[in-house]
């Protein structure tokens, strides 16, 4: 696998999710302007923060005039689950120079991680492919970044003129299903999924999406705690 092939594999894998991300980007642009954020700042936020749900929250808190410390803390909580992605991809990126690690960390969103991780897991350590594996993550990360910038630009410029109730957002859960279901190959992984899903529903009302982080952690623990079947 050349680096071009790896990059395009990542790019292709993230494409279905752009369908779901685009309406979010457009709505973010609209919400940001309604919160009194200037168009230029609303666009810049998509590059500086580059985190969908955190940007929504940020726009709302700015609109409500919340204090800086509270806003920054809330954004940190919303993005806490990304630390799990960081731990998950860290071994694959260990051999890279720092500039690559910084670039890929900046691009590490839910969608980029989801698109790349099945391919990263399929790459065997020390195989010839392992040296190019980071290009897969770069492909999915760059694809999502570019799509997010275009969608927020469309939201800022065209705003409410664009239809936002087409149901395209459903592409995200559908793609996550397409990625996760084939990964459930044993009992421990099934238990991890059931635990994470159940806790996420129970804690859905927690502020700043803290429930998501707790649910994911509960899934990890449940998976490891599940005894392997004795043959």
């Amino acid at each position, binding site marked *: 696998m050349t680096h071009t092939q790896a990059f395009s594999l990542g790019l292709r*894998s993230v494409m279905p999710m752009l369908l779901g991300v685009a309406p979010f980007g457009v709505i973010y642009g609209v919400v940001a302007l309604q919160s009194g*954020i200037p168009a230029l*700042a609303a666009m*810049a*936020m998509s590059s*500086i*923060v580059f985190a969908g749900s*955190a940007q929504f929250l*940020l726009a709302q808190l*700015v609109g409500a005039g919340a204090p*800086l410390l509270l*806003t920054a803390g809330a*954004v*940190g909580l919303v*993005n806490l*689950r990304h*630390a*799990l992605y*960081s*731990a*998950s991809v*860290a*071994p694959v*990126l*260990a051999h890279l120079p720092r500039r690559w*690690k*910084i670039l890929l*960390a*900046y691009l*590490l969103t*839910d969608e980029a*991680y989801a698109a790349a*991780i*099945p391919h990263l897991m399929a790459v065997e350590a020390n195989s010839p492919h392992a040296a190019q594996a980071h290009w897969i993550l770069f492909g999915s990360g760059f694809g999502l970044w570019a799509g997010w910038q275009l969608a927020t630009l469309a939201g800022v410029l065209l705003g409410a003129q664009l239809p936002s109730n087409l*149901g395209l957002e*459903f592409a*995200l*859960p*559908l*793609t*996550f*299903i*397409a*990625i*996760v*279901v*084939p990964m459930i190959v044993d009992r421990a*992984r099934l238990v*991890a999924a059931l*635990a*994470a*899903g159940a806790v*996420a*529903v129970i804690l859905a009302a927690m502020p700043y999406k803290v429930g*998501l982080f707790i649910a994911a952690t*509960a*899934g990890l*623990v449940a*998976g*490891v705690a599940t005894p392997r079947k004795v043959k």
Partner: protein
Amino acid sequence: MNLWWLMLVCGVITFAIRYSFIAAEGHYQPPTWFRRLLPFVPIAALTALTVPELLLVHGEIVLGGSNSRLWAGLVAIIVAALWRNTLLTIGCGFLALFLLQRS
């Protein structure tokens, strides 16, 4: 001006969270139990993101026929389990959602 500082702070926090373990890799020796958690990260995190989208309607669990996302999601889960094909799963999920919302 205050807004730009706020965006910068939030950008740095977001980046720091995403960079944390990537930066630390090789500089610390994580305990064995921590390494054993990692293979479950994609399943646990992505399922936590997905299940509330299917089960909850305005924050309430809705299991009936009116929750078309739930049933379209179940169709997608079955298609994904049988054929392991991303585009087929998304296509069937959207088709199911479309048909359920019309009926």
